């Protein structure tokens, strides 16, 4: 059982790290601020989600696990809100920035 849970953690955290990698590649390659915003908000949010998923077997209690998931949902929500407002300022400051 311990082995399976450890494997779960390793696979999930590695997948999370992969999405942080992909997000950074997007930041480096994408042509403008608005497309970079996509890379940032979507890839990194998923990366964090997978890291949280991987850490769930390691937390001591169900309550601590719920709190961890709560942190991710909060980041997801505030990230989605912040990125649409950043997109709004980018659109108003003109295309091609």
């Amino acid at each position: 059982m311990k082995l399976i849970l450890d494997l779960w953690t390793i696979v999930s955290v590695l997948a999370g790290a992969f999405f942080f990698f992909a997000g950074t590649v997007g930041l480096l390659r994408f042509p403008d601020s608005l497309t970079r915003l996509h890379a940032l908000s979507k890839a990194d949010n998923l990366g964090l989600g997978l890291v949280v998923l991987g850490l769930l077997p390691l937390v001591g209690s169900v309550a601590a696990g719920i709190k961890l998931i709560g942190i991710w949902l909060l980041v997801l929500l505030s990230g989605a809100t912040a990125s649409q407002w950043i997109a709004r300022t980018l659109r108003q400051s003109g295309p091609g920035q």
Partner: protein
Amino acid sequence: MAEFLVGAAAFILAMVALGLLRILRGPGDADRIMAAQLLGTGGIAAVLLLGAASGEAATADVALTLALLAAFAAFAFVKAKLGQASGESRPTDSQ
């Protein structure tokens, strides 16, 4: 397992640093506030990983504080930015 978690945290922080180098070059202010978002998400992941590696439960609260700071920074920026703009469709209600 602890070594693996610390290694993953270091990798994610390296990715964040690389992304920061790109974003901080600009060209616009919006790119710089995106840096705060990046540091928020990546920083939370790293803090949670390090917390799990050391068995320190309080790191979840550090992560929570980071999440709030990144959100506040973004909203302060947008508020200031849209305040400057004379432009169309200025929001009357901020959620």
